[in-house]
């Protein structure tokens, strides 16, 4: 029997209730710090914050329907490795997946975290989010409105979540220490579930009411819907991409701004290979290339850029879709990487971000595999 606590909004909103939970964790000594999004003083913007002083946790925003970049990387960067200090990390499923991938790449330290993920209905694009804010100037109302249908496994009508969110397959991440269950929970409440011993230890220090069961059928239904949309997306890929020219067509407007790479939580290189001399040739050599082929595109190597980035991180792509948001040319980078990533991961029976125990496909090998070539 998992430990499940009931967290009531008590009219102050679910985010404030989660803030209370976070403050309690620090004050009961369960964790030393909390990594959690907060509204700034204007209430207009949301930032990830690392909080040590409970009084500084004023305006928590863990459920705001907008994500200002995948914060998995920041969570990793702000959590000391092998630290005595434990940090409670409030993130969304895609961010949790990124943390799991990054921890395999030594860029995050899962063992120093109390990983807390919430059920996520998906987030909006910045424009949509602004529209929602206009409709609900009080962000407590905005969150309540956005999550109201979600308890029943539905999304708020009239606002489309980002494309990658439409086929995100996981609710609160099963490999978290604590999950914040919304789907299947009574409206206005959050069911706080310990999913690890560490989570249990922390929760057991809190004097809170035990929660009733969540409605698993509702959760199941929601997840199934997401999965079938993922399958649709994959099938659509097959229809759209028959040849590499089709693929080139998809990325044809790429201007090599590297925003996708900069926003990608997995792209962890301190200096990207595309900024090194690896692909550099002298001006004269460009001329000779033109002589050879008759024509070269400037800047060159758009395709090589995308394929190289795929080669480096597509097995770890967590489908957060931040690359798509970052692309000034509206290239569906996230969808492309999701589709390709799924295929490659399938070869190794691997799911990016599922479990820290799974080994990165390119980092290991088996002697008796993949033959005949």
């Amino acid at each position: 029997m998992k430990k499940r606590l009931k967290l009531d909004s008590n009219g102050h909103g679910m985010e404030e209730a989660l803030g209370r939970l976070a403050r309690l964790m620090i004050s009961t000594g369960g964790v030393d710090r909390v990594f959690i999004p907060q509204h700034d003083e204007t209430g207009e913007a949301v930032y990830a914050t690392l909080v040590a002083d409970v009084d500084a946790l004023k305006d928590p925003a863990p459920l705001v329907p907008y994500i200002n970049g995948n914060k998995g990387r920041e969570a990793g960067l702000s959590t000391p490795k092998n630290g005595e200090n434990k940090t409670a990390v409030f993130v969304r499923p895609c961010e949790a997946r990124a943390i799991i991938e990054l921890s395999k790449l030594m860029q995050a330290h899962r063992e120093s975290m109390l990983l807390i993920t919430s059920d996520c209905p998906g987030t909006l694009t910045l424009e949509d989010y602004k529209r929602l804010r206009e409709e609900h100037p009080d962000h407590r109302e905005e969150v309540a409105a956005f999550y109201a249908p979600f308890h029943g496994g539905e999304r708020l009508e009239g606002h489309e979540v980002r494309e990658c969110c439409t086929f995100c397959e996981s609710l609160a991440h099963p490999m978290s220490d604590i999950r914040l269950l919304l789907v299947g929970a009574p409206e206005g409440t959050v069911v706080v579930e310990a999913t690890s011993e560490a989570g249990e230890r922390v929760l057991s220090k809190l004097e809170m009411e035990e929660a009733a069961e969540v409605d698993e059928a509702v959760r199941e239904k929601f997840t199934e819907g997401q999965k079938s949309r993922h399958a649709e997306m994959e099938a659509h890929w097959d229809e759209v991409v028959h040849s590499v020219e089709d693929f080139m067509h998809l990325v044809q407007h790429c201007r090599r701004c590297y925003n996708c790479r900069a926003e990608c939580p997995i792209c962890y290189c301190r200096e990207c290979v595309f900024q090194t001399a690896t692909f550099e040739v002298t001006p004269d050599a460009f001329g000779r290339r033109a002589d050879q082929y008759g024509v070269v595109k400037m800047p060159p190597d758009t395709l090589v850029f995308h394929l190289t980035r795929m080669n480096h991180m597509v097995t770890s792509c967590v489908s957060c879709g931040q690359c798509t948001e970052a692309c000034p040319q509206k290239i569906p980078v996230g969808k492309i990487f999701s589709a390709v990533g799924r295929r490659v991961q399938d070869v190794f029976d691997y799911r990016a971000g599922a479990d820290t125990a799974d080994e990165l496909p390119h980092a290991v090998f088996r002697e008796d595999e993949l033959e005949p070539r």
Partner: protein
Amino acid sequence: MCVNAVRITLDGVPMEVELGTTILAAATSAGVTIPTLCHYGGLEPAGACRICVVELKTERGSRLVPACHYAIEAPADISTSSERVVSSRKMTIELLLARCPEVPALQELAAEYGVETTRLPSDDDDCILCGLCVRTCRDLMDTEALSMVGRGHGRRVAPPYDKKSLVCMSCGACAFVCPTNKIKIADLYAGRTSENLSTYDERLVPVGNIRLNYSQQIPKVPVIDRENCVHFVTGACGACEKICNVGAIDYDQEDREETLNVGAVIVTPGYDSYDASQKGALGYGRYENVLTNLQFERILSASGPCEGEIRRPSDGAHPRKVAFLQCVGSRDTNEEGKPYCSSICCMASIKEAVIAREHDSNVEPTIFYIDMRTQGKEFERYFEGARNDHGIVFKRSSVAKLYEKPATKNLVVRHVDEETGEIAEEEFDLVVLAAGLVAHESNAGLAESLNITLNEHGFCEGHTYQVPGSGGGNGGGNGDGTAGQGAGATAGSAAGIFTGGAFTEPRYIPEAVVEGSCAASGAARLLAEARGTLARKKKYPKQLDVAKAVPRIGVFICRCGINIAGTVNVPDVVAYSATLGNVVHASEFVYSCSQDSLEVIKETVAEHKLNRVVVASCTPRTHEYLFADTIREAGLNRYYFELASIREHCSWVHMQEPELATQKAKELVEMMVSKVRGARPVSLEYSPVVHRGLVIGGGVSGMNAALSLAEQGYEVDLVEKEGKLGGNYLKHRRPVWNLYSPTYLEDLEAAVRANSNVTLHLNSEVILFSGVVGNFYAEVCNRETGEEHEISCGAAVVATGAVEREPVEYGYGTDERIMTQLEFESLLGGEDEPAPDIKSVAMIQCVGSREEPNLYCSRICCTQAIQNAMELKRRNPDATVHIIYRDIRTYGVREELYREAREAGVLFLRYDVDRKPEVTTGPDGLKLKVYDRISRREVELGPDAVVLSTGLAPRPDSEELSKVLRVPLTRDGFFLEAHAKIRPVDFTSEGLFLAGLAHSPRFTNECVTQSLGASARAATILSKDKVESKAEIVEVNLARCSGCALCVGMCPYEARQLDPESGKATVNDILCQGCGACAGICPNKATVQHLYRQTQIMHMLEPVGAQAGTEAEASE
């Protein structure tokens, strides 16, 4: 101005010359060319031809004077090319041309001066009457064998009374100096002119009396042939001394005797070729188009007289049909022949035939042979390839006679047709005689001065099989390492003298190489205490720092004789290379690896301030180090070098497509230019060597290798899988072929056990092996106790042996009367046992050998069979033995055993591989049916026993060991050496060596030689104090490293770790083996592999012609 000097102006340039200098000498020293015809430096000038006239302007006016003759005594203004001069020369040329219109030297002059036609009536003489020949003969040679005779139009050069001269020495000087090639010695000399022929080129071409004997001569300084030089013979001439401007000629040089104090002598004088003219019926020396195999080899050689073009001597035509006649002077019991087999000729002829076909696909070679003896490693496949893929015809027939067709000088070879048994004749354009190998005449003198013994054939009696310290073996070596006969190939009975190669018996290159190493090991055992005391260290110049300099690349393209140039248009590649970015020099060599070419590379580096070098030649595995070391000698870091393999990867594999091969060669060069452009210097670390050897396998080979290392002063771990030492040797009742003492094995084992340097590991195997040359780590597991030992060693020798193949053919296993040779051997019993009750035996050779899937010859079975047959005959004289064979391969002196067997009544029947004998068993005994190719009839035998010669098979566990050691196997499952000829006992992996049957089938004495050779090779590492780290290790660009540790996971050697403080990746240079797996996974090349930097490889992939960077490479 000194007293003897005078000021002149030459072509407007003022200069100062010594008083009395001729104008010609003054002009030459000023670099001004004046044409001459009758001038020769060694003679007083005559001014006869008038072609050298120049205009001399003095106060008294201007006039034309001959430059060669006119001595400058007063200040003068000289013009060598004024209008007046040119017009005078033109007139002279016109006159001379009229007399001698066909002389090339005059035609060239005429062309240069624009003289197109002559207005005078043409003559057809070739003599311009310059008199140079007459003056040379008279003034230089102190002989008047010819003079000017007649007057006016009748004036000419002739010997006195137009008779051939009796005083002429046929020295050839007159012909040498003649500017028009008019003089022919044969017209002058009364005797038979004997040209001085090149011994290097097998007397195919004449040579001068001052010469380089061959182009690879070291030092590359010409020598005077004192036997033939006129100056040395008569005291006359001396022209060379007069002509040599630098005074290099020294007639007074004497041979010098030097005394060296040495502790050991290695004697490897080689062999001589059988004088084929002794076989008069084969026409050598009588028919122009009959050559010896060595002569033909020179003809095939790119550096030979025909530059690799196959031309026959009589008319220079390209021969189509070429016959190779085997066993000329070998296997020949006639008085003028040699009874032994020369071992190498079969393979040599096959190779010559194949190469001839490569050089000229119209050549149709036919090889006439008795038995095809291709018993070396991989030779059988070569033979089959020659027959099946190269279209070479093999005819089994000994040729006794051939004759020449006078009109065509073609040769008709009379032979017995194998199919019909009838005499047949076949006409060939060229015949090559496989003249055998004989002992050098000088061996006798050498033997006397060294106090060693020669055998009846004049070869040295060598003993590789003595066990030091045992008192056993011939001659009783005392083995205390001071004055004993070490167990190298000890020569005769003399102490401290070791020999190798064909001095003891005809041998192939790999065997000769192994013997050299073997002899070295013998010397090293003897001199172990003095090791290193006289060593000198090679010094290199200080390394230039060119890391920041703009690349200046030199490219050297090798012709490799015609190996490359025969397919690839080398000048084209040179021209292309010169256009590549940063390439400031491009040139070609005939052989890049020759000493003088290496000197040129060094000079070019200095001259053109090169900071990077590319050589395009052969595979880097053979010469990369040589070239890299050369640029190091030139002051560059040796890793500013790349080698483009345009031979193995281009010319040899695209022989039919010269244009595409040339294009590919350009691209390969360009790739390496691109790579070297991004090269960075690598400074090597050194790590200490573990002075301990590991020998795997405790048979005769392993024990010898271990003992040799131990006696050289190294500790050795000897690992044997079985519970006792001895290996295959234990199974033999008597050794095959070797004349070992009966106690050989016991003596050897006792010596091994007695040596405190040897640690024995019986019942053990190596289960893990890692590390680098000089620093290996092995785990040895005792199979019985399960105990594991950890061993450190600097080098290891693999001597794991082979096994007798278990036959599946001829009903083996169904009837105990069908057995293998080893089984028969034990049935024969020892001396003290009663003779077996066997009246008749049929032996079948090549069972499961020499055909797929075992397309190799096991080398020992013929001798083994004959030996066993002889033993049976000895014990049981009435017994009948049939040996049913394909080719009898009793190579070398084993041939005598074959002859003895025939004389003793052993019967030999020959079968074809596609018509094998049939063996049936029944109640009335064994039946064997075979079609005998010799008598061309079916023979039926009812022997008491059928003995199968099944050959040797690789050990079944070789594959496992090859995986543990990470060394390759051949297709046949034996261990694969680094290079068949020049590195026969080395593995490609540094520090690992192989010997014995694990290498390939061979006799025990050959195994011993090989294992001693391997020990010498291992000692080249164990004797060092330190080894260089690998250059291809990786380094980390810390600024770029994110600490993701993918590299750590990739490393099989634990050389990659994360630094706990910084979280960045680190490299342990000693543990790193340079595989590059970590660099391959590093997403942004924070990990960089030396010599294989990512930017280098990326630039190699640029399209052809795309590399034109003139700046230093951008930093990575």
